[in-house]
């Protein structure tokens, strides 16, 4: 485990998770980069070893990060909800960054070979779609931040309704409602944004 190389030791992480419980925003900001690094490292490792579509699902990633950090030090389990919430945000960042990198890679690699016609005909590719979702989600966040948190948990981190409820501190019924609305809204915005 190479967390020694990361910016915080287990103690600090567990403190941070507790702080998220007590103080909210500020501590999230500090916990976020640690988690982000950790998730990226795990994802990289998985991809090195095998194709990551093969061995990885996002919930598993979050769990692994959780278990790792837990193994380092005793995170207060009462704050697991806060952990899940921050992890979901970090997960969104990891995946979107990955998509952006992939998009850039393809663009560079294909530049000479793609004819004008082909470029015109090119349909929405999944990486582009993911980046578009991220952008629309940022807009949705301004309308109702809770909906954005739910999308981060459900779509970006693959959490179940119950886990999402735990992460965003609402009831499963509310999560279901929020998810229904967020999904519809994002689908409509994505459809509208397409030419």
């Amino acid at each position, binding site marked *: 485990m190479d967390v020694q190389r990361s910016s915080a030791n287990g103690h600090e992480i567990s*403190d941070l998770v507790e702080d998220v*419980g*007590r*103080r*909210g925003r500020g501590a999230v900001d500090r916990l976020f980069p640690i988690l982000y690094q950790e998730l990226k490292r*795990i994802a990289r490792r998985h991809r090195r*070893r*095998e*194709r990551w*579509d*093969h*061995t*990885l*699902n*996002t*919930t*598993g*990633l*979050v*769990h*692994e990060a*959780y*278990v*790792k950090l*837990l*193994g380092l030090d005793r995170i*207060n*389990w*009462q*704050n*697991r909800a806060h952990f899940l919430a921050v992890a979901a945000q970090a997960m969104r960042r990891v*995946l979107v960054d*990955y998509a952006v990198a*992939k998009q850039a890679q393809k663009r560079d690699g294909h530049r000479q070979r793609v004819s004008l016609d082909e470029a015109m005909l090119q349909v929405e*590719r*999944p*990486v582009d*779609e*993911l980046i578009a*979702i991220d952008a629309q989600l940022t807009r949705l966040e301004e*309308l109702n931040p809770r909906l954005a948190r739910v*999308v981060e948990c459900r*779509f970006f981190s*693959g959490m179940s309704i*119950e*886990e999402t409820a*735990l992460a965003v*501190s609402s009831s499963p019924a509310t999560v279901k*409602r929020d998810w*229904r*609305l*967020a*999904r*519809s*809204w*994002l*689908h*409509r915005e*994505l*459809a509208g944004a397409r030419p």
Partner: protein
Amino acid sequence: MTLERWREVEALFNAACSSSSARVEELLAHAKPEVREEVEALLAQQQSDGPLDRSALDLLTSDDGETVDDSLAQSAMRLEPGQTLGPYVVVSTLGRGGMGEVYRARDTKLDRDVAIKVLPAVFGSDPDRVVRFQREAKTLAALNHPNIAAIYGLEERDGATALVLELVEGPTLADRIAQGAVPLDEALRIATQIADALEAAHERGIIHRDLKPANVKLRHDGTVKVLDFGLAKRWSGANAGEMHANPLSGGGLTGDGAILGTVGYMSPEQAAGRAAVFASDQFSFGVILFELLTGQRPFARDTSVETLSAIIRDDPPPIATLNPAVPDSLQRLVERCLAKQPGHRYPDTRQMAIELRRVREDLETLPRREARPVVPTDRSSAVVGQPGAMARRRPSRLAAALVILIAAAGTTWWLRPTNGGVRTLAVLPFASADADQDVEYLADGITESLIQRISRLPSLSVMARSTVLNFKGKPIDPREVGRQLGADAILTGTISSRPGQLRITAELVEVASGVRLWGDVYNRPAGAVVSVQEEIVNAIIREGVHLAMSDDERLAIGRHPTDDAVAYDRYLQARHLAFRGTEADVRKALELLGQATARDPQFAQAYKLLGASYVSLALDGFERPTDAFPEANRNLTKAFDIEPQLAEAHATRAAVYFFFDWNWAAAEKEWAFAESLPSGALPTQERVSHSMGRWVIGGPAEALRVVRRLRALDPLTVSYAMVEADYLLKAGQLDDAAALYQKTIEDEPTADALDGLAEVRRKQGRFDEALEARRRAYELAGDDWLLAAFKTARGEEGYRSIDRMAFEQELENLHTRAETAYVSPLDFARAHARLGNREEAFSYFERAFADRAPGLVFLKVDTAWDLIRDDPRFAAAVRRVGLP
């Protein structure tokens, strides 16, 4: 879109989604056109699919034109019926197992059916792994044990590897458990065979790593076969994280449930990402046995993350509460298997298997009763798991002083033997010998119980437990301690636990000479706390103190708080938790006490502690007072019905009168009654609330008198010095207050004492000193976010700005917390008052009155209100509480 319009859209959309189509038409017809249009567009999206219906990761990986399913299919070789693989002809597909597709095939040479597992291609790409795998497969093939499904061979074709295995017909243990209750004898018959399989494999150095009911087959002739030995987790590497991440290992479950299905039987070390050891299989075996005996998994939780946490952190619920029919010996065996530390389980799996066989033999030699399902049909009393996520909060200052109400009994006792002059005996807290957290509550409990039982002798008087607690965890020189306490003799001891075993030592030392007057060692089964206590107390009195007792006294001393060992154990755990006093602790205590009173409905002490715990939840602001106080009363009434003279219950009732009913006279009467009971019955800590009452009603001078008497009784308890210093501060005796705070800080710096000192310095106009004390308090509490601000803060202005920041943050915290939990309206009012937000503060008063916030009784004396005290509305509030 404006936020306002968005809210309308949101409300209408949600309403439309949960209404009938006719009603939807009606709703839409009444909406503003632009809102209606928006909602209709959103509702239209309900029907169609889109990218959000997949997961983000799915979306990303499909970018290469491959879905997860495709890639899986490619990774493992597919076989069709009729196809041959060496001498084997594929007959049909059996399903997808832990490692890939499984087929039924015919061995044409030996003329028997076998199972063939095709391992994913990725498996073959790592030569190291293949070698390791082949080695284990060989060992297993040579093992030839009746309870382990045999491996016949390895076949390789086109770079893919296939395992040829014994085909076991019959349901899996998971199928059997799903069908319903497993009778005790059947459960044992299955368990002994699994244990035998484990024993044989472990002897040859093979760990299963993934033992679970889905991997155990039950043949129709009664033979049990364990499948996938040592193999299941090998192919994916030994990394625990990958195991959760791998959706294939779920054994038939789908989606998120796959993870849940797998982690339920995992050992704590595996759950924490460490490698499996032999004892890991013992743990998984313990989980299976637990499930067989009780019908439920010991660490079942709603989500897999919580399950992982429970495996690592939580104790399993006691089997006896779920199925009283399980014999003690078997319970102990399961508990030992489920020990969190591998080293606390069985050093040798053979020993576990032998013990299990012995249990089974013992049961079979008993007169045979009709085979009854071991799972009680009524599960309503079964309580598993723990309360959901709860915000952790340090007990507030008010609460810290009042934890008190649920604090435990005294510890120093003054024994007056009838023969010859007065003799004093101090009972020191029993120490847990190996700093073992698990037995700490037992150690505390034994100490308390010793004291309580000795205290039933009318000839005894009491000092406080808390004084002696100062010695807890420190090396004790009995002679030194005895001199400090003015005792003639010290009774002390240790307690330690091995799985299933308790070892208790006790000794009595004469202070003047240092001579050990008496000592003994007790080794007892873990469940025997009650009888051990009785023995120790009797031995001490008989042999140690040579105390002459009347028959009545002997009778009194022999009375147990309860005869139910499990109920008593719950009570001791609850007491320990209640004393720690965080919200989660107190709630867990309530749960345990509920179990205790369910087992013994005549357990007065448990009702008393239930009452006190509800009071503490209300005082800490964790629970709406109008909910918690009546609940406290209900339990106190039960306690009184059983034991009318319970002093602590009277003190708690006094607190209810005082903080909730605002009935000062009744509170005073209860306090007086509690004090009139035989001394020693009421711990000094319980009396602090009395002094608070005096403070509120009679002024600081009155309160000072009460607390000074407490300090005289109990000179070493730091918190009384704190309370006295607080009163001195309120009374305006600033120098005395400062001196007392400083002395406390020297003894043991606490955030509360430093805050107190800061307040004194502020009042004295010594702002830089106030700032320094305040800074240290924050540092100590681990609140480092303000520390940067302290660097530049100077003088009165600096102090004010720190104050403002702190209370603005406090307000923010309250708002955040209020989103998910109850927050007392008075806390909001108080924070606003500190910030000088007069209108906002008063806007919360009405609700504070509706909730009957306990803090209202402090209106007259709490300095937090100073900035708005001159307001006529404040005077009206004071009158409304009826403060004299």
